[in-house]
């Protein structure tokens, strides 16, 4: 995962997660992402996970941690592209990704972010 798979729309960063995330690459990914958030003052990050085959507890943890890091830097993270099979499996397992909101697709994610960012930092309380 390198910088070239990162897109920017306004003050929102979009990263598509593909291939294998493991202990080596996850740190590199988080580093890269957070540095970009800092450089661009991004207020929102959209993580596209439609290419992931499964989400196990490890992946859920990675996503949750990443979102927490982004939060500390003032950004809101939204996950898109969870396929129904993965959603069902996660619910069966009782997996919960804290700190991360989800949206059906890119449009929906951008809309949510627009509202949130526009309404200011305290708007999340209403959600």
């Amino acid at each position, binding site marked *: 995962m390198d910088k070239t798979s990162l897109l920017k729309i306004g003050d929102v960063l979009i990263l598509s997660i593909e291939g294998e995330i493991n202990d080596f690459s996850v740190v590199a990914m988080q580093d890269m992402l957070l540095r970009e958030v800092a450089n661009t003052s991004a207020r929102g990050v959209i993580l596209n996970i439609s290419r992931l085959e499964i989400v196990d507890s490890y992946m859920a943890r990675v996503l949750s941690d990443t979102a927490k890091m982004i939060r500390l830097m003032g950004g809101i993270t939204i996950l898109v592209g*969870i396929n*129904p099979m993965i959603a069902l499996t996660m619910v069966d397992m009782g997996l919960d990704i804290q700190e991360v909101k989800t949206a059906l697709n890119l449009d929906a994610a951008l809309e949510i972010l627009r509202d949130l960012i526009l309404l200011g930092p305290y708007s999340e309380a209403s959600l």
Partner: protein
Amino acid sequence: MNKENNLKGTLNDLHEEWLSQMESTIWGHGEIRNIVQVEILGMKMLKAMERDIPAEGLGEELPELIKEIAKAGLQGGLTPRETAMIIFSFRPFLNRLNYKGSAERLNQILDEMGILVLEFFFESSDNIIHTQRQDLLELSTPIIKLWEGILALPLIGTLDSKRTQEVMEKLLNAIVNQGSKVIILDITGVSTVDTLVANYILKTAAAVNLLGAKLIITGISPEIAQTMVHLGVDLGGIVTRAVMADGVELALSLLKMKIINLNKE
């Protein structure tokens, strides 16, 4: 060559006798649509029993024939007993077959065949029940697109774990395919609300949320409300409304839409 002709002659005679015996017993009673088929199968049975049957088991040919008889019986509306009796109706003819083994073995084989036809009979009826069940499932869990972005799922009847699985899969696929943002789950038609139903609702809500959509539960009657509280069911943060119409109104407002009465303008 002559001997073979004699054998064939004998088999034909046996077959005819068997047929007339059948007519006076089973076929005299019920309507059998597949009479011709059973006739043909009867002849095949006689031939197969005369040939070499393995020392153990029934070989390959006989079970296939028996399966066909079971199907014919099922389709013809015969009871399991009547279908088995078709097999046992061959008993009087056993000792007249040109079979190389012992009479005891032939009788034993007939018994095995009788049991096998029953097993096939039940297996086939299970399949029919399964198909009917699938049809019923389709009918009773429709997913309705109320509006762009709003899906309604009225649950009717009883819920079992197999059905809940299938409905959930169907719902989640529909959400992703249609880009629906609000799902209205109406439980007016659910006969009993117990912990199984409650868990199903919670699970559905979690899955729907995971996809980025919202769930609204409607149709909770006063009785169901009381039952749920007594059971200690906690729907947590799931939004509910008493009737479907209220759920629709809420769904629309979540999508920043509303219904206005043009007459009042």
